[in-house]
């Protein structure tokens, strides 16, 4: 622990940690030393000189932001000389400064000018010369404007971009009085800037301001600020929404709280337009004569209840199913799950996790006993080795990636990437292994063999913490024996020396973290891939302590929470299996239903529900906030399945690719219109708060669900609000037992949190694993060839994935000008060699076909980001629905589909 020392500032006695920043210490003790360039997230700059102080026995006026406190230090922060010097410095800065102001941003400089009386021209020494200096503005970025005449050259933007976001896009041009900040070649819009807006949030003078909605902002006129959680990926960034006249006009990152400490990505900062889109669903719609007709809530809800009841009556309780939603709150999903289990009377409830990390969760549950990330997002910053497998984290979890980049760029950590496709993190990587698609098990077994043959294993850990100890290890050793570097290279294409180096770096690291993504999970061998990762982690003992472990960053805002609260065909809240009789009795008591009425057999999973609809055993379906007609695999099959349903209800905020097939469409609320909670990728329960009213007659998801249940004659309970629902969740899920809304006011809490005094758990598996015997389990698995291979007719293997500027099926992200200005077009990536061989030119329109379907036209982007023989397409765009091409073959353990591997061919589009 850091030693506490004593110092005085203006004769006030202060205790502080030795070595702490003097300006920060003063600020925390309510001594407001003026400053502009200092920010506690950034390294001290000492550029503005306003924070000057006098320190006994030191010469001159010293910038306090550059001083570390020591014992006995005597500091003068305010006296006549210091104040005069500050006023002089401000006066001088002011002479180069455009003082106009539109009240749309906080201006720390302006406040100081006022504080020192320099707003009165007669108090100034220097004339204003900014106009003569000819400072430029830069309006080229889609999301921000820069005005050099308002810039005080404090370096905050440059350092924020570099030190906080790890992007280092900004710099100065020219020198002396005419220098100013630039992105790119003095053209922000054509620079490497990805629009995260960290610089906007850190700018103290309004020189860098956002473009979207700024004209609507007047900070002097009734701005309401609402703290909530970002609706995009599973990082769970804490947002402060600015609301003016009932509309969101700004989104800032909340400083000083986990997981993001003020950081956001472009989606979190600029992706809120969709909430106020005129295309929002505002009234219930009922399909009559093939057309949707507006209806009252009563008519729509009665119809839904009647139809579901009729199907249950006619075909039995197994004929109904539901897709819950990773986008809505825990409270919504808990009640949705309760409706399916209590009212439908079966376990046919699942959601998009089955298409996402189901295999990771399955492997982790079987081996480690918990299906969630073992560590905290901020732990990446302190890691010395980060193994990133099939995970384009800079684009899919941009804020998590900032911690990884920090570790590499500031602390010398080594990143090892396993990915057939180039990702932006490769720039920071120590090693990039590029195995052919679908060969990961062979590669990892090769790495295991290196670790075993070079004796980089942790015998003590294996003996104490692994089920079967060294005997189990011997079985793994025997299996991996044949994976020699030559054998692995023949399968994967990865050079032996790189694979060997990667295995050594991981095994020897002090606190390595594995970040595994869709590239590993979305395969028929998804569970096997993660078994291999876990095998490697267990035999090297790289888990069970702070800063070491395995973490799957979750793709959507609440994909973790929906599983946690039991919207799964296999588990009740808290991952308790549906077959667990004791739990069923416990739940039956809480729900006030006969124990026998609860189905104790596993339900159908996401793809199985569609297959059952296709085969006719599922007749009625309730889809909340999901868009399977874009995101399910093998869409032609999915479409046929959906068409065969007797009755489909879709509850959403927009028309989607799925709503045309619905019989009833129910308008629900967006994140900013809801109260509740999400759980992020590091198991942190985070509050979601209502900032604006829903449009038209749109209703809260949970209210719609309770109404349907009531009208089906089986009320779910008397919930006054979301907090009541949460309290019931906490009673059903032991991992949440100690969490209540009052504890979530300022910070999230990481589960498991078993009682009210428990602080939450930042690291899993410290003492033992969560398996029945507390031991981790090895699962030696062999490489198996994929069922679908490239052949003469379908010579390419197609990979699919995500990009930074779009999100999931793009229903939200595409309704934001800022995001679509950056990226709004589908494409297929192809290796230059392949393009040349086929005679394709950059941007040419192609036709891509698989055994299951085709997409045309789609522009080809020729790039060595993909290996020869492999293609890549983003899955966001409805006009290029990549899942027409993918397969619905399933991983036998987790039922996930192989989105990452489809054999296709490419030919010129003929128009």
């Amino acid at each position, binding site marked *: 622990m850091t030693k506490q020392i004593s110092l005085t500032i203006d004769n006030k006695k202060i205790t502080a940690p030795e070595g702490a920043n003097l300006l920060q210490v003063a600020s925390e003790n309510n001594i407001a030393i003026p400053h502009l360039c200092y920010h506690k997230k950034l390294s001290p700059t000492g550029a503005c000189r306003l924070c000057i102080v006098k320190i006994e026995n030191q010469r001159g006026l010293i910038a306090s932001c550059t001083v570390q406190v020591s014992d006995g230090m005597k500091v003068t922060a305010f006296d006549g000389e210091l104040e005069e010097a500050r006023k002089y410095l401000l006066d001088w800065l002011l002479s180069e400064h455009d003082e106009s102001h539109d009240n749309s941003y906080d201006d720390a400089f302006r406040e100081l000018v006022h504080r020192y009386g320099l707003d009165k021209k007669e108090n100034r020494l220097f004339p204003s010369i900014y106009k003569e200096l000819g400072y430029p503005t830069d309006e080229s970025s889609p999301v921000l404007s820069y005005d050099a005449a308002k810039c005080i050259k404090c370096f905050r933007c440059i350092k924020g971009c570099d030190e906080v976001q790890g992007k280092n896009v900004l*710099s100065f041009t020219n020198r002396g009085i005419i220098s100013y900040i630039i992105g*790119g*070649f*003095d053209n922000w819009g054509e620079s490497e800037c990805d629009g995260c807006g960290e610089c906007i949030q850190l700018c103290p003078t309004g020189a860098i301001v956002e473009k979207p909605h700024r004209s609507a902002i007047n900070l002097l006129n009734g701005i309401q600020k609402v703290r909530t959680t970002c609706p995009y990926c599973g990082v769970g960034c804490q947002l402060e929404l600015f609301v003016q006249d009932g509309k969101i006009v700004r989104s800032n990152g909340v400083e000083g709280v986990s997981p993001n400490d003020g950081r956001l990505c472009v989606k979190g900062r600029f992706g809120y337009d969709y909430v106020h889109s005129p295309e929002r669903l505002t009234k219930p719609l009922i399909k009559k004569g093939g057309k949707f007709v507006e209806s009252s809530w009563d008519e729509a809800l009665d119809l839904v209840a009647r139809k579901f009841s009729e199907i249950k009556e006619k075909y039995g309780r197994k004929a109904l199913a539901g897709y819950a939603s990773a986008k809505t709150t825990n409270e919504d999903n808990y009640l949705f799950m309760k409706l399916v289990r209590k009212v439908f009377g079966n376990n046919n409830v699942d959601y998009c996790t089955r298409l996402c990390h189901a295999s990771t969760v399955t492997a982790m549950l079987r081996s480690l006993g918990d299906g969630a990330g073992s560590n905290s997002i901020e732990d990446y910053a302190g890691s010395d080795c980060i193994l990133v497998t099939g995970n384009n984290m800079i684009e899919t979890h941009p804020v998590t990636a900032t911690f990884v980049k920090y570790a590499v760029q500031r602390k010398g950590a080594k990143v090892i990437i396993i990915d057939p496709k180039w990702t932006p993190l490769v720039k920071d990587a120590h090693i990039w292994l590029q195995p052919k698609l679908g060969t990961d098990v062979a590669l990892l077994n090769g790495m295991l063999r290196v670790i075993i043959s070079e004796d980089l294993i942790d015998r003590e850990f294996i003996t104490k913490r692994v089920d079967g100890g060294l005997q189990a290890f011997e079985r793994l050793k025997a299996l991996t024996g044949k994976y020699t570097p030559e054998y692995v290279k023949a399968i994967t294409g990865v050079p032996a020396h790189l694979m060997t180096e990667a295995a050594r770096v991981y095994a020897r690291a002090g606190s390595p973290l594995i970040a595994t993504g869709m590239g590993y999970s979305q395969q028929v061998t998804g569970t096997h891939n993660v078994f291999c990762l876990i095998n490697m982690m267990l035999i090297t003992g790289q888990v069970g302590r702070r800063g070491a472990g395995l973490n799957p960053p979750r793709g959507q805002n609440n994909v973790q929470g929906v599983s946690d609260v039991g919207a799964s065909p296999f588990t009740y809240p808290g991952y308790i299996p549906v077959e667990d009789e004791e739990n069923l009795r416990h739940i039956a008591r809480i729900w006030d239903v006969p124990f026998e009425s609860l189905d104790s057999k596993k339900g159908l999973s996401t793809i199985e529900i569609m297959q059952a609809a296709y085969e006719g055993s599922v007749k009625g379906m309730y889809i909340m906030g999901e868009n399977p007609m874009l995101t399910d695999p093998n869409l032609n099959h999915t479409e046929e399945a959906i068409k065969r349903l007797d009755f489909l209800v879709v509850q959403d905020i927009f028309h989607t690719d799925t709503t045309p097939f619905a019989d009833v469409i129910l308008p629900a609320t967006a994140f900013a219109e809801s109260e509740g909670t999400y759980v992020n990728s590091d198991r942190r329960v985070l509050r979601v708060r209502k900032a604006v009213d829903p449009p038209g007659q749109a209703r809260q998801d949970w209210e719609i669900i309770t109404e349907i249940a009531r009208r089906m004659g089986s009320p779910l309970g008397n919930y006054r609000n979301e907090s009541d629902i949460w309290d019931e969740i906490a009673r059903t899920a032991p991992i949440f037992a100690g969490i209540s809304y009052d504890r979530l006011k300022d910070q999230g809490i990481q589960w498991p949190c078993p009682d009210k005094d428990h602080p939450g758990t930042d690291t899993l598996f410290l003492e033992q694993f969560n398996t029945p015997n507390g031991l981790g389990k090895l699962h030696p698995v062999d490489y198996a060839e994929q069922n679908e291979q490239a052949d003469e007719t379908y010579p390419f293997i197609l990979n699919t994935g995500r990009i930074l500027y779009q999100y999931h099926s793009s229903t939200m992200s595409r309704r934001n000008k800022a995001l679509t200005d950056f990226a709004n077009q589908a494409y297929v990536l192809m290796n230059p060699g392949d393009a040349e061989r086929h005679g394709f030119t950059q941007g040419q329109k192609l036709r891509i076909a698989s055994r299951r379907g085709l997409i045309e036209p789609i522009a080809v982007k020729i790039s060595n980001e993909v290996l020869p023989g492999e293609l890549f397409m983003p899955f966001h765009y409805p006009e290029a629905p990549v899942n027409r091409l993918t397969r619905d073959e399933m991983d036998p353990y987790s039922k996930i589909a192989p989105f990452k591997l489809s054999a296709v061919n490419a030919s010129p589009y003929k128009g």
Partner: protein
Amino acid sequence: MTNPLQLMCTQQIIEQFAPEQHNLLNILHALQDNHPQNYLTEQALDDTARYLGLPKSSVYGVATYYTMFSLVPRGRYIVRVCTSVVCELHKAGRVIGSLENMLGITTGETTPDGMFTLELSECLGQCQDAPSVMVNEKVYNNLDDNRLAEIIHQIRGSQKTANR
């Protein structure tokens, strides 16, 4: 004499240097010297940034920090008039005026034939023989109008010879 770099493309010039950030200035000099119009094109800056793994803004920042680099096309001969205090005392202002008259351009401009660009410079370190002017790499001292005319005439003559 033909510059041996002149026949090389941007990428070839860049790859003569190791891809290390400390080579940035050397690369920029080589690129500028190689260009017949004595300047750094955006393509050159872009290729340099990519080669060294630097953000575009860093390369641009360096290129604009140093006055010896230009981002706009210039003449084959860069005439730099020293504006240090000593040269000022020795009528550097008059040198500038004379050169502007002789070349028919104002400071910062390039002659229509692409021969000369007139620029100002920080101290050339020739105070003992002020006023001074530097033309490309060569320094001329103790200047008056006659001497300046002679220098310009000489360069034009040598260029004609070279063209023949």
